[in-house]
């Protein structure tokens, strides 16, 4: 008696499918063979066992996130899908090269913007774009951040189009979240499928906390002693608070809130039960705006008065540096390929999604006429907030966005709707294709280190293109396979 195949009703639709090639006749790609065979044979009870096992580990570990603007104001488990996403090494090394090239160019851009502004003088990027960016910090002009690097931790979002090409969707160069989920997903997969995992050459991700700590320590202004690093969190109500505690614990450093720190004589100290301890490096998971009420938002209760003074005097390092947001502004994003050509004299390895800039008259006219076929995004929002997906929107929503675009053209960009690649995922109707993206994590300390794979996010709602956890997305473990 043969068991019914888990994939018998699976279709790839008109999308690029990560696991299968071919429209009519499904055939698993070479690097997915083992995964395909393993999951195809699973019985319903095995699936529910493993499901429960995974869910209970998530609950035990307290892996949750908070949704803002939700009446319940609830903390939720980040939904996890058992079928891993597999990336062959040959493909990954191309992605890795592309990411490395990109982060270097972005850091050179930030350096340039806060120093000589050559790229503006040479007419590559218009000055008003930089100056009008919400996250541009004139306080940083002329300041040399420790080791000349601005964005030490970057989570670049990649998608694949209908041909399977990797495209960069956005660069999160401020405080990207998700590394803790990546690590936990791997832990859980190893427990749920020990043999499958053990039988394949999956590149490890466990070095992340260690590499992150080295990245932070590298920035320390006091070279003579072991650096004191801390993680500065906005507090328990932040959506990524779980991640903050997780990473601090993994790195073995203190997690602090603004009220735990104090500035004395342009140095930052941490209050401890044994008195004040000088802090060298702050891994801040707090936006620039809230860092220092003396310099930025006056009403911020989350920051530390005098922090910027200590920072600008070089007595404490911040990761990421202040003012990196100017590079992950979605308008600046459109110029990254030009930055790569300008600073590195190279062609970009990873392409951008074509982007219309609403402040350009011609682009705006096109956007307003084609709202139905475009995704419109606010230039300075993240987390899937403030966006319009043309073909899934109502007439009222489109009119609302048209008004917003007319009123604040600088604040909006539009992109064609990319049919994101899909990946087999456990759903109510069995295994079905769901759209996925990929957020690799890049660390830039002494050198650029990229954790193999990254966090694969999956839009669990049928047909949905929004993968953000705050908008009903889930995640998968991502396996970079050697020998493929």
């Amino acid at each position, binding site marked *: 008696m043969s068991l019914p195949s888990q994939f018998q009703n699976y279709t790839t639709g008109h999308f690029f499918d990560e696991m299968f090639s071919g429209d009519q006749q499904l055939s698993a790609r070479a690097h997915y063979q083992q995964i395909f065979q393993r999951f195809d044979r699973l019985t319903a009870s095995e699936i529910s066992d493993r499901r429960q096992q995974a869910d209970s580990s998530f609950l035990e570990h307290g892996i949750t996130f908070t949704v803002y603007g939700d009446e319940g104001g609830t903390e939720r488990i980040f939904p996890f899908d058992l079928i891993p996403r597999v990336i062959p090494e040959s493909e990954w*090394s191309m992605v890795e*090269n592309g990411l*490395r*090239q990109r982060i*270097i160019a972005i*850091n*050179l851009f930030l*350096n*340039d913007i806060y*120093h*000589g502004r*050559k*790229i503006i003088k*040479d007419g590559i990027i218009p000055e008003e774009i930089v100056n009008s960016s919400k996250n541009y910090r004139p306080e940083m002009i002329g300041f040399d951040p420790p080791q*000349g690097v601005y964005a030490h931790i970057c989570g670049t979002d990649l998608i694949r189009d209908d041909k399977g090409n990797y495209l960069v969707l956005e660069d999160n160069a401020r405080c990207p979240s998700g590394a803790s989920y990546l690590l936990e997903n791997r832990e859980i997969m190893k427990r749920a499928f020990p043999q499958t995992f053990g039988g394949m050459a999956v590149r490890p991700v466990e070095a992340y906390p260690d590499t992150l700590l080295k990245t932070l320590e590298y920035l320390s202004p006091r070279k003579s002693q072991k650096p004191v690093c801390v993680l500065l969190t906005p507090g328990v109500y932040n959506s990524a608070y779980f991640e903050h505690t997780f990473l601090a614990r993994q790195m073995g450093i203190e997690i602090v809130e603004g009220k735990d720190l104090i500035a004395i004589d342009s140095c930052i100290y941490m209050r401890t039960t044994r008195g004040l301890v000088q802090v060298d490096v702050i891994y801040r998971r707090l936006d620039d705006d809230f860092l220092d009420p003396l310099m930025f938002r006056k009403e911020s209760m989350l920051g530390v008065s005098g922090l910027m003074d200590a920072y600008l005097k070089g007595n404490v390092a911040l990761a990421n540096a202040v003012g990196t947001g100017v590079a992950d502004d979605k308008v600046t994003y459109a110029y990254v390929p030009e930055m790569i050509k*300008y*600073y*590195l*004299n*190279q062609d970009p*390895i990873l392409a951008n999604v074509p982007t219309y800039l609403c402040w350009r008259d011609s682009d705006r006219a096109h956007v307003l006429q084609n709202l139905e076929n475009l995704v419109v995004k606010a230039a300075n929002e993240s987390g899937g907030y403030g966006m319009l997906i043309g073909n899934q929107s109502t007439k009222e929503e489109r009119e609302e966005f048209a008004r917003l675009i007319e009123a604040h053209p600088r604040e909006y960009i539009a992109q064609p709707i990319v049919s994101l690649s899909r990946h087999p995922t456990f759903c109510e109707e069995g295994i079905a294709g769901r759209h996925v993206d990929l957020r690799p994590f890049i660390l830039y300390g*002494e*050198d*650029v280190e990229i954790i193999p794979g990254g966090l694969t996010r999956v839009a669990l709602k049928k047909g949905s293109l929004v993968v953000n956890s705050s908008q009903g997305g889930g995640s998968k473990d991502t396996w970079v396979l050697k020998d493929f």
Partner: protein
Amino acid sequence: MRLYIFHRTTYSYPSAVTQSYNELRLHPLSNDWQKCISTTLSILPICRPQSYLDLNGNIVHFFELPEAHHRLLIEARSIVETISQVDFQNFPYGVNLSKLSKMEGIPECRDYLQTSTYVEINPEVWRMAVDIQDSSKDVFQTAYQVMEFIYQNFEYCKSTTTVDTHANEVLKIRRGVCQDFAHAALALCRCIGIPARYVSGYFYDSSRDQRMRGAEASHAWIEVMVGGHGWFGLDPTNNRVVDDTYVILGTGRDYRDVAPVTGSYYGPSPDGFEVTVRVKSTDD
């Protein structure tokens, strides 16, 4: 073997310098033995590097920094796929030294038989070379003996020589680093008519106890022309025939042709100079 190379050079100056013009030979070559998959150069202060191919076929990047600056930072990150240059079961023995007299007429070899900036052909070196050659009549065998001679009789020592030490000096004091060992080997080979060129690059120390020399820095070795078989790499610093753990940045008559970073500027001498090189295998 797939290797990742990180090479950083920093200069800091006691007061501002201006009109800095620099050339970099930090881009690995692509040839029969290696393929450079990517190289990314980043330079601070901000500038726009451009590139050209020099007469030796090396990739050169150049940039200028007219404005005043206190610090220059150059980083190169490369990924290179290497394959072994030699079949270790099958060294290119069998080419007689008597065939070498024709080499001078071949344009590809001519430059590598002459005196150059750091290497001199003179009777004293020739005498030493003839002693090393002993009874050997074979080109590869002789070059191998030269490598062995240097490895066994020269002391690897970091502080006795400078970047400007001439091969004659090295042969006299019998001490130095990879650059000096390579220059000495070039002089000995060229004196007895073996075309020999200088190679700048890196190598990955795959030994368990990391006992090899020069892995955490720019490395240098030589290549000799074995008629009919092409160029072969020999590393006198480690007494090794060059294999897939070596990455070639460029080749030339001597160090002068392939210095990784050269340049000029107006201002005081640097009071800080630091080089960091990391070579990692991405296969494991």
